[in-house]
């Protein structure tokens, strides 16, 4: 969980791509997956997902995400095949159309869930925010809110584990409990966490104010995010995916 949002440094093609292009890539994959109903196109999109992960040099993470999604996917697949009534029965209550529809739904889910996490892993949050402000002229306030939220996640988790450590040390049996019971034990302890978080947001507001938050304009950013050959290539891939999805439904 902690590692889910952690930036993995590198110099891969994906790393060097403009953050906006990366975002476009994820959006296009999602849109394409919803336009098409063709299982082979979906498989192609899944291949694209995996390719992004492997090219970016995070194969381990890619497979981990895939593994995590598999559990939900299998559950959905079984549910779908059992509930689908149409088509020629193959055996028991399972029909050919049922299998196909279930496969499509599940595949779509997996295809859609993967790219954003992958892209976030190889893009600095600050680059993403800066590029959105500079290139797409997203208001800085929104970009800042999102980056702050993402930055808070690891901090929050770190504090959570510190609190659990402190409570274990005084005899609260976190180390023996599992699952829901553990969750039930953690929740009442979140009061201090909430208090520190609220206090911290307040302090952050002051801290950015004295560092010129109000003066920031889209032109303030020092780093530039030009579009290059890699981006052009990525856009062609994007166009290809959309065309394929529209042509082969």
């Amino acid at each position, binding site marked *: 969980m902690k590692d889910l949002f952690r930036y993995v440094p590198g110099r891969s093609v994906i790393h060097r791509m403009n953050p906006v292009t990366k975002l476009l890539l994820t959006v296009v994959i999602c849109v394409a997956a919803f336009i098409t109903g063709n299982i082979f196109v979906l498989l192609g999109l899944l291949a694209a997902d995996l390719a992004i992960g492997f090219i970016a040099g995070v194969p381990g993470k890619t497979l981990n995400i895939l593994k995590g999604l598999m559990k939900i996917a299998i559950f959905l697949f079984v549910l779908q095949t059992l509930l689908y009534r149409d088509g020629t029965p193959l055996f028991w209550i399972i029909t050919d159309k049922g299998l196909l529809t279930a496969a499509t739904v599940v595949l779509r889910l997996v295809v859609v869930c993967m790219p954003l996490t992958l892209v976030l892993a190889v893009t600095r*949050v600050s680059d993403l925010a800066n590029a959105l402000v500079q290139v797409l002229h997203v208001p800085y306030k929104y970009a800042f809110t999102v980056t702050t939220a993402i930055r808070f996640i690891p901090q929050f988790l770190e504090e959570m584990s510190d609190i659990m450590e402190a409570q274990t040390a005084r005899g609260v049996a976190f180390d023996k409990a599992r699952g829901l019971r553990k969750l039930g034990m953690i929740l009442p302890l979140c009061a201090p966490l909430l208090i520190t978080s609220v206090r911290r947001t307040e*302090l952050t507001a002051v801290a950015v104010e004295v560092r010129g938050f109000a003066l920031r304009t889209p032109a303030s950013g020092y780093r530039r995010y030009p579009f290059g050959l890699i981006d052009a290539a990525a856009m062609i891939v994007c166009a290809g995916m959309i065309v394929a999805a529209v042509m082969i439904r």
Partner: protein
Amino acid sequence: MIDIQSLSFTYKDEEHPALRDVTLTVPDGGFLGIIGPAGAGKTTLVRAVSGVIPHHYRGDFYGSVSVDGMDTVDTPLTDLSRAVGMVFQDVDSQIVSTEVEDEILYGLENFGVPHSEIPERLDFALERVGIADLRGRSIASLSGGQRQKVAIASVIALRPKILVLDEPTGELDPVSSRQVFSLLSSLRKDFGITVIVVEQKIMLLCEFADRLAVMDQGAVVRQGATRDVLAGADELEALGVNCPRVTTLSQLLSKRLGRSMPVCVNLDEAETMARGLMA
């Protein structure tokens, strides 16, 4: 110059004033240490200097605070912030970036420092604080002390005339704490920056600050040259503020020998005094 005249401040929705009739001046290039027990109003005072009181924290404000010729009530906060750099007590809440370099860039970008000047400012800040090797690191991978230094670097890059720090060494070990104070001292010497530090480590203040202000219950109860303030060590002790052991030593000796000994504020002075006695 920082000129505070009869400042009283009560936070909105609070009953008791956080500052009571504070009058305090710090000349350009001065190094002021603020010390006092918890809840004495030290943080409130530095907030008033940086202008976040009354611009961010609302409340009843009486008296006046003038910073570098600007009245903090009439001047917009961003104008004040160009002159006053502030390092807060809780490092984690003031860091806005995920990367060290971005953190230092942040203020430079906002205040519109020409982009041609930025690389030089970046190098300067990183070098000066001694964290050039951390440049490419992510904030999450740093220790508390390293984060503290990044926070200081990000403010130094803005080249403020006045630097205000609220317990900057809270998370640091003695060696790193000294490094931070020597850094402040050298910035003051080289660029004439005025430094104001809230600090509990009295030994560091004695070594580096030329002025001390002791606070208690919202008021500045003693202020002046460090040595003069320490001369009233007994009073400080009663307020819950300790003084360096060398100071205690010089005062004990005055009593035992029945003649007044010089007030020692650091080890070198104590050594000179002791050698004089032993000769």
